């Protein structure tokens, strides 16, 4: 078995037994990056010198007996997350040369835990998209089939974990941007509860929905990364001031007697039969381990998409007002121009088409005369969507269903039709609107060989339940051990 085929836990075992050093492991992974990038383009920036220096430091720490679960393990970080001294572009022309003066809190925590950072992962521009085709620097391809999209917006993260060009990545999820690409690339991805992981140092898209979380090959690996990045941060007043439980211990709780809700609104016409078959088989597996499947209803599900595409663009139009060409980023200044011309030129040249579309939509939804009909109304329906979940969680411990209506579609297939593209997020975005934790776990493949994911949603701060369900499933199945023939 080659180093890049290992899981994070397997790599750690080799490091602990001194069978390989972090420097050797890092060199092997950098070679894997070099070999796979021409076909998948998962990275926007590669940082070999930094990685080797961190690997050397990790080896020294290990020699002193100071090592933890992530010490010396090579990783990538989605390029929406600030990394001190390393270009952070958000896959946008407007931030093409932005070098953050500080680390995001979660990056600082990972560095303290001994991360080796191989580079920054590709994404849809400003995390707006479902296919990574909105990257200003070119799309990422799916390692299972390079004609397919990897999902988005954390498409570079998911593709890289699947291809073995990192052991884990941290992405962000505003409407499905961790879970949907994880599903399409056959890896595990979790959006934790809103407030579980600090947002300090994340480039903001929609502040009431954004949340960072890990993408890994196994549920057990995910627990290790989550344990490091979760926790209160005084620099983010929306982060939750509550203790972080022992996620590793939660893995082996088992699922006997657990009540799992199956929402009838997630098994509708339009759900691909192969996706339904794989998800139903996964539910049967969970039932065979003693979980109880309970049919539930989330009656406002059909309104989720409309609510999301009012609220997320509204928040985005406000957040993205900061790109004005004054303090950082692209600044277009013509000799005769005044301040207003600089704003217009900078923003029109710096933002790509999807970002412009969402800024327009959000500005419209917030503008005089339309605020009540769109933003006001959507915020009320958001309450109804949340109540659906709270009612369901009185009867069940978690909710299970598909992540996406179809397996990964072809590159270019939906770029001309924004509404069709938005529909890829129909099962994932309610989770963000309600602030719930959600996870995607690989549960099979289509006849074309494209991965399919099982989604598990829980009540606020029930990450442990999600991990227990995912671990129970992975211990009985082997979808997560398959590797793409890349």
């Amino acid at each position: 078995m080659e180093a890049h085929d290992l899981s994070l836990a397997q790599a750690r075992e080799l490091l602990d037994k001194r069978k390989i050093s972090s420097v050797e492991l890092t060199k092997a992974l950098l070679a894997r990056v070099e070999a796979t990038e021409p076909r998948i383009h998962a990275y926007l920036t590669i940082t070999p010198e930094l990685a080797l220096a961190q690997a050397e430091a990790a080896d020294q720490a290990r020699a002193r007996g100071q090592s933890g679960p992530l010490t010396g393990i090579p990783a990538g970080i989605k390029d929406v997350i600030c990394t001190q001294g390393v270009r952070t572009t958000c896959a946008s022309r407007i931030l093409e040369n932005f070098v953050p003066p500080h680390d995001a809190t979660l990056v600082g925590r990972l560095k303290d835990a001994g991360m080796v950072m191989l580079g920054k992962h590709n994404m849809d521009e400003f995390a707006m998209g479902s296919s990574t085709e909105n990257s200003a620097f070119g799309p990422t391809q799916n390692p299972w089939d390079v004609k397919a999209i990897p999902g988005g917006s954390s498409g570079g993260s998911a593709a890289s974990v699947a291809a073995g060009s990192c052991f884990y990545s941290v992405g962000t999820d505003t409407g499905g941007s961790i879970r949907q690409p994880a599903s399409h690339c056959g890896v595990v991805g979790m959006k934790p509860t809103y407030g579980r992981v600090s947002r300090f140092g994340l480039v903001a898209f929609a502040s009431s929905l954004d949340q960072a979380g890990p993408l890994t090959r196994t549920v057990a690996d995910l627990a290790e990364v989550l344990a490091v990045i979760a926790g209160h941060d005084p620099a983010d007043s929306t982060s939750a001031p509550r203790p972080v439980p022992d996620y590793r211990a939660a893995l082996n709780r088992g699922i006997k007697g657990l009540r799992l809700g199956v929402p009838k609104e997630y098994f509708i016409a339009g759900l691909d039969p192969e996706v339904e078959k794989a998800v139903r088989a996964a539910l049967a597996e969970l039932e065979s381990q003693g979980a109880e499947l309970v049919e539930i209803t989330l009656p406002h599900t059909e309104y989720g998409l409309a609510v999301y595409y009012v609220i997320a663009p509204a928040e985005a139009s406000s957040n993205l007002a900061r790109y004005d060409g004054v303090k950082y980023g692209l600044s277009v200044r013509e000799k005769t121009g005044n301040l207003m011309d600089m704003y217009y030129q900078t923003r029109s040249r710096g933002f790509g088409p999807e970002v412009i579309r969402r800024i327009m939509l959000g500005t419209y939804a917030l503008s005089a005369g339309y605020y009540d009909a769109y933003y006001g109304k959507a915020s009320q329906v958001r309450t109804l969507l949340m109540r659906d979940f709270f009612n369901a969680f009185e009867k069940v411990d978690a909710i299970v269903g598909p992540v996406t209506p179809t397996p990964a579609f072809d590159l270019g297939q939906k770029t001309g039709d924004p509404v069709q593209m938005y529909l890829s997020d129909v099962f994932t975005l309610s989770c963000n609107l309600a602030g719930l934790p959600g996870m995607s776990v690989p549960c099979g493949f289509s006849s074309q060989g494209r991965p399919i994911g099982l989604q598990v949603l829980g009540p606020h701060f029930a990450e442990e339940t999600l991990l227990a369900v995912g671990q129970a499933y992975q211990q009985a199945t082997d979808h997560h051990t398959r590797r793409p023939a890349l």
Partner: protein
Amino acid sequence: MKISYEEAAHVAKLARLRLEPAQADKLTVELNDILTNMDKLGQLDTEGVPPTYHALALTGAMREDAVRPSLPREQSLANAPASDGESFIVPRVI
């Protein structure tokens, strides 16, 4: 029509975006398409339903009003498109 070409042009102005005529045409069509999908919201009776702006019941995260170290000036200006070493330089305002 949910949004006319003129309205789209007005919204672009509010958002400080300068659109080429062809781009504005295309966006107007796309926005109409998206907004039509949002008509769904109007079907629901939300009389008396409170709005949600934030999913968690967190309120008033207070801290001491204490002086703390901040970024040094050179670092704050390091990404500036134009600066004189002390300030951000912008085109003439008035």
